[in-house]
């Protein structure tokens, strides 16, 4: 089977304006790469074969972590290693630092970017292997047949497609109420992390709001949760180079033993990072302790619809939610 990329033209724009021009010129044939860790696999598989590849790693203004007062700005091209090493982020958002540090392997974190980590495509093996599924423009889901192997697939929000988000930083950014800045045609728009990720009911061919022509330029993490209690945990088969079976990200403010505010999200359970609203609402105003743990565990996966091989994610979600609560004690 192939592992040699198809032929394409490679462009290395030096500014966002130039990149925008290229995107406009090449339309549907344009494909943005940064670290390229997701893209090159698609190209080697020859499942995706854009003719114009635009390498944006030269856009220096999209690199770096800086304090902007109300928020911390992270350039979309900042590598995951830069996030791991950022003292600013370590101090304010250890949750994001931990999540970035659990992505794949050191080499991938050294070239893989935050933008790439949130924009990456799903790992559904049927889709990746080029099966003509809904997400690929077909009219079947091969991962949700009576005999399909779908251990890694979705518990919630399945709509024809049962793929899940593979991102570790995604749930962290959703918990942190981050905003994603997107450039297009010389203009920018801002979308909350929670709305940045989209499910199959919204558009089955995409994992995020990004459309052809969009460039994710920046992630803004508001200071709202700086200094709050933060928790991240990822459960995967291997401790390196693996995608989460389930991961959990939580931010919480606790005063006098009671939770005043909290946000919690899980990855690996649906197409987008899933807010655990049930858990959040039972925690708010309540005392941290054994009862909260028990209740969090009970409601975390409520509404889950298991497939053939993934019902283990139901107790696993509950356990991870309970552990997040436990971390507040």
């Amino acid at each position, binding site marked *: 089977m192939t*592992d040699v*990329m*198809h*032929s*394409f*033209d*490679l*462009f*290395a*724009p*030096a*500014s966002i304006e*130039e*990149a925008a*021009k*290229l995107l406009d010129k090449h339309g549907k044939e344009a494909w943005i*790469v940064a670290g*390229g*860790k997701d893209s*090159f*696999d698609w*190209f*080697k598989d020859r499942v995706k074969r854009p*003719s114009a*590849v635009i*390498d944006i*790693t*030269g856009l220096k203004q999209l690199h770096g972590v800086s304090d902007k007062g109300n928020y911390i700005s992270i350039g979309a091209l900042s590598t995951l*290693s830069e996030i791991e090493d950022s003292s600013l982020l370590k101090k304010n958002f250890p949750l994001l630092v931990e999540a970035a540090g659990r992505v*794949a*392997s*050191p*080499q*991938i974190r*050294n*070239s893989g970017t935050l933008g790439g980590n949130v924009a990456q495509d799903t790992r559904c093996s049927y889709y990746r292997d080029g099966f003509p599924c809904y997400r690929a423009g077909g009219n079947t889901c091969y991962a949700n047949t009576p005999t399909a192997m779908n251990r890694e697939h979705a518990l919630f929000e399945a709509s024809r497609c049962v793929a899940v988000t593979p991102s570790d930083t995604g749930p962290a950014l959703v918990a942190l109420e981050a905003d994603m800045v997107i450039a297009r045609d010389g203009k920018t728009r801002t979308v909350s992390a929670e709305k940045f990720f989209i499910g199959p009911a919204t558009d089955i061919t995409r994992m995020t709001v990004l459309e052809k022509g969009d460039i994710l330029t920046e992630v803004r993490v508001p200071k709202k949760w700086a200094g709050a209690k933060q928790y991240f945990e990822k459960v995967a088969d291997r*401790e*390196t*180079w693996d995608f989460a079976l389930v991961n959990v990200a939580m931010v919480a403010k606790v005063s006098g033993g009671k939770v005043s505010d909290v946000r919690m999200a899980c990855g690996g359970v649906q197409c987008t990072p899933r807010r655990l609203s049930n858990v959040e609402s039972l925690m708010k105003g309540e005392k941290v302790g054994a009862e909260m743990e028990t209740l969090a565990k009970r409601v975390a996966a409520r509404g889950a619809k298991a497939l053939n091989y993934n019902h283990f994610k139901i107790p696993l979600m509950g356990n991870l939610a309970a552990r997040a609560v436990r971390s507040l004690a």
Partner: protein
Amino acid sequence: MDMSENWKEDVAESEEFDFPPDPADDFEWVPATKEVAGNMPDLPLETWQSPSTSRREFLRGVVCSGVAVSAASYLWAGNSSEARAAVRGVERLVTLNINGKNRRVDVAPNETLAHTLRYKLGLTGTKIGCNRAECGACTVLADNTTIYSCSTLTHQSRGKKITSVEGVAAPDGTLHPIQQAFIDELGPQCGFCTPGQVVAAVGLLKKNPKPTEDEARRALSGNLCRCGAYDHYLKGVMRASGRA
């Protein structure tokens, strides 16, 4: 050649014995329906190689034939400004800094750094184990940071100092302390992952000359070893860092 010797008799003193597979009659054969490649007469003395084919011509042949059709217009272009790259695509002829030396190479837009190193520059120490950024056998340093060269476009390495396993030892051949320590601790088994392990460990010591054992195993964790020699490699890193 007499291949009928029955060595199985030599070892058949007990039915309980696991016979090794016989390499010569392990399979039955069916003939090919057309010309049977295996039964072709011996090759004529004149082979495909014309005497005039020199190594230099061969190399040029490969470089030229690497031209992808859609990118042909960029071949051998003289102007290398970034603005041009933005509008018309990257230059194919690039200067790479490999192991401290500048090398001019013709590079296709879709070419990976591992491919350039191995097939254009003859640096075959960098291995391709998976070609998917999963195993680490292709690890090189880019400005002292470890990357998977199999999943990095060569064009993305322009302007960076690339170090492959061939550039780790001193110019006089003196081994890097990591290399010596891997020998002393019998790190390599099959050796296929070893160049990547060496480069990852060298990269670690550049950033953190006195790592803890835990820091070391995290730094090397992007390098698979199917022989499972992690223990020995880690001992090598600790020995090289003076903490053995």
